[in-house]
């Protein structure tokens, strides 16, 4: 086990534990904080894969900006009392069984596929470097890139329609 592997396992455990805590925390603000922890550990994974740009973007946009929005939403919901409705136990059980089945399917699919033999390019890959990423984004993927601006525009219009006082 070299340093990279130790880091990988540490980050994986942190990401999974954080994700579990997001779901199981009673306090929604704690959920958001755990989600931020998860995002940070995923950013760590990006760095291990030599994709520094994605790692930084993940922190700036997701852990930074979007989590602030999440907090705002929680504040907007006025959860000052324990107004949380009691969830049906059978519903919980059904959800657990369904999610567990999905997990099993994924694990089985991963085990049977060939990619288990290939290891991620931890040290040599340079595809995630900003230069290569930019080259791909502005040449091969330039059409989806432009189209995404329509998505942003509709989000802007939507924010004004929904959020602005009439």
């Amino acid at each position, binding site marked *: 086990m070299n340093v990279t592997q130790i880091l990988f396992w540490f980050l994986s455990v942190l990401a999974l534990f954080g994700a579990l805590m997001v779901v199981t925390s009673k306090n929604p603000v704690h959920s958001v904080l755990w989600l931020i922890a998860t995002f940070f550990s995923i950013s760590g994974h990006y760095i291990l894969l030599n994709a520094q740009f994605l790692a930084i973007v993940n922190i700036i946009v997701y852990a930074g900006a979007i989590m602030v929005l999440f907090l705002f939403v929680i504040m907007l919901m006025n959860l000052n009392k324990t107004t949380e409705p009691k969830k049906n136990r059978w519903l919980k059980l059904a959800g657990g069984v369904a999610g567990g089945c999905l997990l099993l399917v994924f694990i089985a*699919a991963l085990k049977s596929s060939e*990619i288990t033999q290939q290891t991620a390019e931890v040290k040599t890959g340079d595809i995630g470097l900003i230069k290569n990423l930019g080259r791909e984004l502005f040449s091969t993927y330039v*059409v989806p890139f432009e*189209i995404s601006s*329509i998505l942003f525009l*509709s989000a802007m219009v*939507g924010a004004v*329609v929904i959020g602005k006082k*009439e």
Partner: protein
Amino acid sequence: MNALILSAVLGVIMMFSGVMLKQKSAVRNIAITGLFLLLVVNILEMSGMSFFRINTAGMMHFDRFSLLFNCIVFFSTFVYLLLSARDIEKTGNYYAEYFTLIFFILCGVILVSSFQSLLILFLGIEIISIPLYILTGSDKKNLKSNEASLKYFLLGAFSTGLMLMGIALIYGSVGSFSTAQINMTEKPGALMIAGMILLLFSMSFKVSAAPFHFWTPDVYDGAPTVFTSFMATIVKVAAFIAFIRLFGEAFGNLQPQWQIWIALITAATLFIGNITAVFQQSVKRMLAYSSIAQAGFMLLSLYAMNADAKEGLLLYSAAYSLATIGIFAVLIKMNDYTFDGFNGLAKYQPLLAATTTIFLLSLAGIPLTAGFISKFYMLKAAVATGRHLWLVIFAVLMAAVSVYYYFRVIQAMYFKEGQPGIITTSPVFKYTLVVLAALIIILGIFPNLLLNWYYF
């Protein structure tokens, strides 16, 4: 490509028209003219006049199927605006924005009808969904509209998440977003099958197929009726075109694996849609369930996936969209959305009642209407596969059930006494309804008028 760029630009123009122009009628006229232009430009591209040469790196392909489908969508939206543009303005203060969002949705429709890469599919689905969440909640003072919007957003975001997960798994096993590349995979691994199943689930959600339909009645019922009309018709057929393209082009070689799943989903959708529609008291909610039932019929084309199915889907989307837009346009004018609200409509508004009857007959699939011929194409395509004949018999049976609830409206209009209240309609509205009804009958007698465009 013509239409894509024009509709994006039109969306931006509509954005500013709301700021610059103070008159509602000017904004409305710009929208209607813009949509007409969109239709013209798209027809020009069909006849080989493409204004833009953009290298999409094989991510989009505008073939006749997608262009003709776009024509149908633009025409339906054009009719929709002619009939209901005034009602759109009544929803809230942001009347220009509603048109903006509709144009952006059309951008998404163009993307999902011509994608060759899962990336474009995802972008298209998102561009369709996000404005729809907003349109659903645009009646801000109405609690039901808010609830519908939130419900739609949460469930829609979840299903989009499933779709992304599926795309990621497929990319992981194939190493490409291109549908052609995915289809060429020899010996697809379990990872790819898992991805395909996730895509199947999320697309079934988007078209509101049976085990994933729970959002549909509430969202369609809660949304402002004008936008329900848009969602239930144009957006729904667009999701179908994405569905059939995805499973035809990316997973065509895997058909033996997914065909039985689609057959089961189809049967469940037909059953739940039709049976639940029978018990509804509100026409709006009945139409929501009817849209699920009609989705079941459209799923037959996905199940069959042959030449007949593609023709049938084009016809079906035209027949279903036009008829449903017509019914909703009348429904918006009503004061009471229950079946009793339609009592005696024929006496006071004979024209509205007559055209509504034609639309309902078409939806029920009565001969001489477009609905009949499109259902016929679907069944023909399903029979041609030579397997699972029970599905065809079941579909016919369910079509028979659907006659019951469509005829309840006709019965209320013609054979019951009542006072539907004063309904004011403009001459344009009436003429458009008549033209629409005529179109449905013409399409029912000469379906080749539409289908010839597919080949020539």
